[in-house]
């Protein structure tokens, strides 16, 4: 099946929905694709089947905002394709797979890629033990299934989401007993920086205060300047160790504390999903706190790439800035595309974009001030010991990677000699850790170490779902 559209949007989170709805409102033929069963992305997770919502307000205003966006999508003429995974983009073809309908190809004049982000993996002794979970996974479990993963949850993380996540979990009744944050207690200058960008962000600031209050009222201690260093247990987590950090987040010897816990929840921020951008040869910048490599784009979201399509990058997949900013970015891209394809005058585009641009500016200023307070430091990459598994899919330990790193700066070389990064997660979990190990060994910046060569498919897919007997190779001689 081949489907032709003016605009195809990959990713049905706030960024993608906003871009699709905005463009569609000017009469463009738009398709939106998401691999999940429902639209809404990460933040607007809806309850699992069989769970009734008794009080929507318990889910917070994010849920309500999400419901509005989804309604906007549902009421539009947009063609919606869920459970549809984009596998690759080749020339002007977007190639997808669906569990029942199989391969579907889309072609279009403009493409928006809004793939979101995933939890930043943190590698330390014990990180692969059952009971160690990322915040996103715990949140999904608690929000959509209303199941708590444990009876005694220790929360380790950093940044505004660490606070938000832990408070949300507590509100849902999950037994979080302590929270640690790697960043130091915010200095007065950083707080001032935050205050000066608070305009337009009172809602977020208010959220933060409420989250803090939740922790206080539940008597859950919150410690600044500490990092997780170990998880131990036979068969699953039984104890966690954490320590004070220096200014680079290196754990300070002698400050370790060991505590019993059955679940360790990690919320150290996010990595953008940039596989598709890399496949398209887009340019990248580097910002550790926003998740490392972030795709370069102009103020409308337009990227430079080797593709013949106009490619827009919006939302957390382009560097993590949060859902308000994601939505505003999506609106701006939608307006630019409507203009680009002749459905909206330049004057009108600029007029309509003013409010979104202002919103984006304010959100980004605030985000920058927050990021300053919670800058991710290189110590996060120094927690592994010789015996720590770095690549969990292939069970490759640090001591097996170290000797290879001695003679190369190339993650692809490390991969081919050690198998680290060859597994089912397609190196999403270990690749930056390995890059950091190389950077430390060769005294260069981690931003100088590129990813391995991007290849399709960007997500694993069953052979039987994509094999196509109608494609015949050039014959040698037997007819």
């Amino acid at each position: 099946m081949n489907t032709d559209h003016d605009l195809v949007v990959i990713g049905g989170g706030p960024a993608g929905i906003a871009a699709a709805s905005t463009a569609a409102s000017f009469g463009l033929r738009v398709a939106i694709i998401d691999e999940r069963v429902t639209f809404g992305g990460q933040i607007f997770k809806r309850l699992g089947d069989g769970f009734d919502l008794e009080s929507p307000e318990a889910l917070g205003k994010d849920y309500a905002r999400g419901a509005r966006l989804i309604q906007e999508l549902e009421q539009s003429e947009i063609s919606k394709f869920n459970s549809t995974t984009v596998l690759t983009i080749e020339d002007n073809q977007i190639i997808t797979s669906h569990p029942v309908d199989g391969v579907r190809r889309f072609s279009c004049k403009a493409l928006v890629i809004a793939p979101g982000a995933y939890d930043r993996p943190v590698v330390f002794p014990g990180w692969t033990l059952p009971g160690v979970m990322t915040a996103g996974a715990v949140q999904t479990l608690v929000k959509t299934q209303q199941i708590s993963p444990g009876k005694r949850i220790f929360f380790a993380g950093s940044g505004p989401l660490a606070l938000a996540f832990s408070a949300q979990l507590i509100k849902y009744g999950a037994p979080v007993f302590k929270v640690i944050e790697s960043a130091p207690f915010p200095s007065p200058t950083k707080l001032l920086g935050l205050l000066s960008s608070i305009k337009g962000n009172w809602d977020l600031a208010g959220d933060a205060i409420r989250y803090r209050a939740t922790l206080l009222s539940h008597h859950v201690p919150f410690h600044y300047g500490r990092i997780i260093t170990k998880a131990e247990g036979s068969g699953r987590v039984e104890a966690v160790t954490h320590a004070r950090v220096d200014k680079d987040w290196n754990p300070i010897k002698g400050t370790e504390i060991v505590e019993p816990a059955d679940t360790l929840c990690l919320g150290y921020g996010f990595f953008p999903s940039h596989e598709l951008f890399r496949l398209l040869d887009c340019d990248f910048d580097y910002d550790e706190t926003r998740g490392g490599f972030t795709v370069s784009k102009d103020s409308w979201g337009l990227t430079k790439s080797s593709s013949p399509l106009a490619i827009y990058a919006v939302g957390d997949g382009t560097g993590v800035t949060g859902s308000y900013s994601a939505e505003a970015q999506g609106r701006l891209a939608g307006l630019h595309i409507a203009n680009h394809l002749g459905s909206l005058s330049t004057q009108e585009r600029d007029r309509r974009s003013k409010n979104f641009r202002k919103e984006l500016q304010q959100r980004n200023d605030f985000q920058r001030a927050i990021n300053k307070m919670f800058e991710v430091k290189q110590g996060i990459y120094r927690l592994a010991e010789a015996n720590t598994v770095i690549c969990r899919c292939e069970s490759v330990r640090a001591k097996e990677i170290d000797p290879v790193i001695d003679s190369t700066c190339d993650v692809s070389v490390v991969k081919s000699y050690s198998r680290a990064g060859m597994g089912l997660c397609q190196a999403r979990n270990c690749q930056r850790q390995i890059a950091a190990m190389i950077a430390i060994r060769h005294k260069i910046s981690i931003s100088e170490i590129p990813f391995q060569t991007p290849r399709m498919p960007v997500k694993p897919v069953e052979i039987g779902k994509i094999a196509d007997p109608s494609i015949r190779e050039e014959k040698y001689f037997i007819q």
Partner: protein
Amino acid sequence: MKERSPFLVGYLDNETNQSALPKSSDVVIIGGGLLGTSLAYYLSKSKVETVLIERDDINREASGTNAGSFHFQIALHQLTPNMSESEKRRLADEVRLQVDAASLWDEIERELDADLGVHFDGGIMVAETEDEMRVLKEKDAIEKEAGLESHILVGDEMRTFAPYLAPDLAGISFCPREGHANPLLVGPTYAYRAWQNGAHFRTGCDVTRIERINVGGDLKGRRFRVVTSRGVIECNRVVNATGAWAAELSSQLGLRIPLGLSGLHVNVTEPREYFLKSMVQHIGRRLTLKQTHNNTFIIGGGWPSREEKFPKRYSNTWSSTAGNLAVALRVLPMLADVKLLRTWSGVWAFTKDFKPILGESEKVPGYHIAMVPTGFTLGPMVAQMLSQYMTATPGKGKLPSEFNIDREVA
């Protein structure tokens, strides 16, 4: 877990590799693929002063992207319709060369004292139609004559022998001698052992020009100036082992090396419980399929990847992915629910007559080329042949005349 190869420890020690390019050497090898590294090993074992220069890291091009199969059976691309007797003789010669290579692979792990994942688990070649079956029998006869053991199996015999294959295939041939090794380890291990023997390696060092100096001077004098991105080195003998790029540098010396280039597509899947001991190929369609000892399946066989401008790697296409996988499923239907993890591609260099280009140029004495199309299977062996030629008393070394590097292949 099994310990990994010893070469990882101190391999191409970083400090040595970062230090300046030596000013001169007897031999300079350009290219750190399997041909270059194995030649460096055999030369350094004979105490020949050797510097190997590689523009990237060792083993990153064809030698590190291939599927690691030992191809001893005659394959699809070697066959032509209605073969004449002389063509059959030519094929039999090729098979003999491959059989020789097999004995080198028998010994290689002992020679290099390392686990290189060498396995001789046999190779199956399937025929889907009766037409293909006829060709399979024809090729089988040639192989037998050349001394390669193989068996034809059809019907229930085939289904009992290989119950995992689609039951309706016309038949198969089975060659117990075929096998595979880990291509990611062989070249680097040769390099490591060569380095221990005293060969020098410089990676990240791009050769941009080769100049002849001292033309007509005596044999002991330096005859070439090799200009690189990390400085200049003079040498007595140059070996061009740059694989797909061999023609570019050669043309600077006025030599025309007629190479064909083709980007090849490879797929790799998630691991599954080990069951497929033997490699599987197809006599009529592009397919090589094997289960590695890491339990993943590697599926290739000559589907094209798309040319890109260096240094960008050739990109994979959807049609090669979906097409190649369909051939694999036709032969092994039980792979349907195995997940494809990744594709990759490499550039394959071949000669029109599929023979190696190996030896010293008569037009430019001292200039050597080492390239061979089935380079994983045959690379170490032809490197050994070239090393023997280069260490023989001048004028006494011999290489098969049909490998002649000055030959013109139409």
